[in-house]
């Protein structure tokens, strides 16, 4: 379990974010801050509002209420759960296309840098549709990083990966955070959040029930539980979920 991140600059503040679909409220009055270099995990049962929250932060959904404030000129990177790639284009062509759309200063150099970072240099000319799920996810993340974002938002980034690919993914994400990029990810896998997140946001039925480090969550449920998953389940039980 990583230690809590040292206090650093706030990159984004969310205030009272609410999203309604007709009569259903998917997200209710959610407020939090993100700081540079921290890795924030969003956990919660299915339908808790994790993807909705990330989509609002990414700008693909508009909140019904609430506001977002960003403190960096750099954009936010977004990696959707399903690889958002053109399967008929090669890895390099996908990267080049999105680099141009992102209007990065040097698309060729950015493409090359991403190929190096993701370890896909030797697969650059292969069609994305022929890559494994893990490699497609790497390209998916690489596209999210093309704009050199202040914060990278990942929706269930490891859902389709095998354990070895997952390990490499978290190594990669850890490296990003080490360079000062804020990383926020959603996951079903509580132990993954326990291992890799420096801070946790727990969403249940659209409500933000907990914000703190994994250690703080364990402590919040009595401190006698040895893993976050047990603490998470206990936490939900205590609150009638």
């Amino acid at each position: 379990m990583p230690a809590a991140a040292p206090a650093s600059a706030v990159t984004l503040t969310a205030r009272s974010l609410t999203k309604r679909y007709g009569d259903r409220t998917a997200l209710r009055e959610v407020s939090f801050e993100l700081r540079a270099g921290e890795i924030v995990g969003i956990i919660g049962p299915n339908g808790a509002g994790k993807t909705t929250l990330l989509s609002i932060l990414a700008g693909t959904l508009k909140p019904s209420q609430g506001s977002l404030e960003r403190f960096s000129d750099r954009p936010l990177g977004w990696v959707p759960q399903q690889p958002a790639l053109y399967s008929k284009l090669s890895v390099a062509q996908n990267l080049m296309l999105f680099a141009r759309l992102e209007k990065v200063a040097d698309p060729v150099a950015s493409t090359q840098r991403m190929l190096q970072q993701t370890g896909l240099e030797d697969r650059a000319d292969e069609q994305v549709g022929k890559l494994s799920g893990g490699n497609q996810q790497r390209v998916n993340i690489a596209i999210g990083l093309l704009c050199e974002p202040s914060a990278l938002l990942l929706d269930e980034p490891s859902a389709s990966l095998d354990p070895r690919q997952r390990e490499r993914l978290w190594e990669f994400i850890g490296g990003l955070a080490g360079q000062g990029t804020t990383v926020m990810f959603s996951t079903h896998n509580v132990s993954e959040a326990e291992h890799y997140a420096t801070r946790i946001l727990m969403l249940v039925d659209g409500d933000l029930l907990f914000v703190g480090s994994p250690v703080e969550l364990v402590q919040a449920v009595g401190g006698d539980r040895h893993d976050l998953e047990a603490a998470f389940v206990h936490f939900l039980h205590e609150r009638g979920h």
Partner: protein
Amino acid sequence: MFVKDLQILRRSPLLVGLLVVYPIVLALMIGFALSSPPGKPKVAVFSEVAPGQGKVNFGSQQIDISSYAQQLYQSIDPIKVHSRDEAIAKVQNGQALAALIIPGDLVGQIRSLIQTGVGSPTVELILNSRDPLERQFVQQTISARVNEVEQAVSKQVLQVAVADLQQVLSGGTVNIAGQNVQLLGLRNSRAIVQGAIAALPANSPLRPALRQVVGFANLAIQGLGFASPVLGSIGTPLTVDQRQLAGRTTPTDAYATAIAVVVSLMLVTLLLAAGLLAIERAENAYSRLVRGLISPGALLGEKIALAAACASVLALLMSVFVSLFIHLEWSRFELWVLAVVLGGLAFGALGVAIGAVARELNSASLLGLLVSLPVAFVALVPANAVSGGLKTVLDVIAFVFPFKAALQAMSNAFSGTPPGMVGPAFHLLVLAVVFGVLGRLALRRFA
């Protein structure tokens, strides 16, 4: 599996809706078309034949031409006018599809033909239809009725001729020039001659009987001489002289080419635009694109432009190839380009609207085909081939989809025919904007 498939269908309301509504709408249209009588073309009719002068006497019979005119009027929607110029004006300003001019000497010509075998009764049909299919419809309607009139006249003339020949054979009373004349008949003449030969000595005076035989012979010759031209005229007693008003009409070959080009343009553009947009969603790329990388409107514009460009090149190549075999006016090539580009833009806009509604690649392709084929079919039905309410429905469908306007533009580009390029071009531009806006609205539920 059966239940599973039903459950999947239940969760695909658009597909199920299409599969249910489409055959119902088609069946209703076909049923309505079959149960409705064909429409009557509006024809301006001017008759120079004075009232009461339409009767032709021959032999012992009389033909009233005006009664046959009434038969013709059952197949057309006649607009009776008072002069040839007025009839032509009705055609020129579009109030009538054709003008039928019945000349004042028609009765005299028919009489001459019947009595002497010389004469060419002719009515004049003036057409100004821009649409070759519509023109063909008017021609066929008039021709069919003229044929019926010809058959009726022929039948009556034949009856007269047969009766006259019977009288020549057996004798009787005939009216010639208002006077009743007794015909002896060949059989009676033969009996008299045979009797005379048998009864008279070789040197007996034969003058009265021989005079009678000679008289009969003269009448018999006259009678047969009268019957021959009558029988000869029964084939085609009436000629329709067809003419086009001054101005250009669409040659049928060029029109057929325009149809082929526009159908190709429509299918390629529509399916390409719908498919390209649906692919963005199938690849999960749409959400990533519209979060600041490109606006939805620009994305739609790009799809429309790309689909229109590809299909336009194809349509132009097709036109150039066809022009090797069919005369298309190369001097108007810039209008070929304008017509295919504007048509492509309108079809492209319709395509993205379909793609945005369908959201899935397969559904978009299916929906594109389901929409495009009836639209083309409806636009090709001649306006007057159906009647009443159905005509209004077809007119509305032809107006709100780009096929008809694209066909008019292409047809004009190929041969310079009415209604010109400005109207269809403006129509296509408006449709491109309208369907573009509809596509943009549909994109709200696209992600």
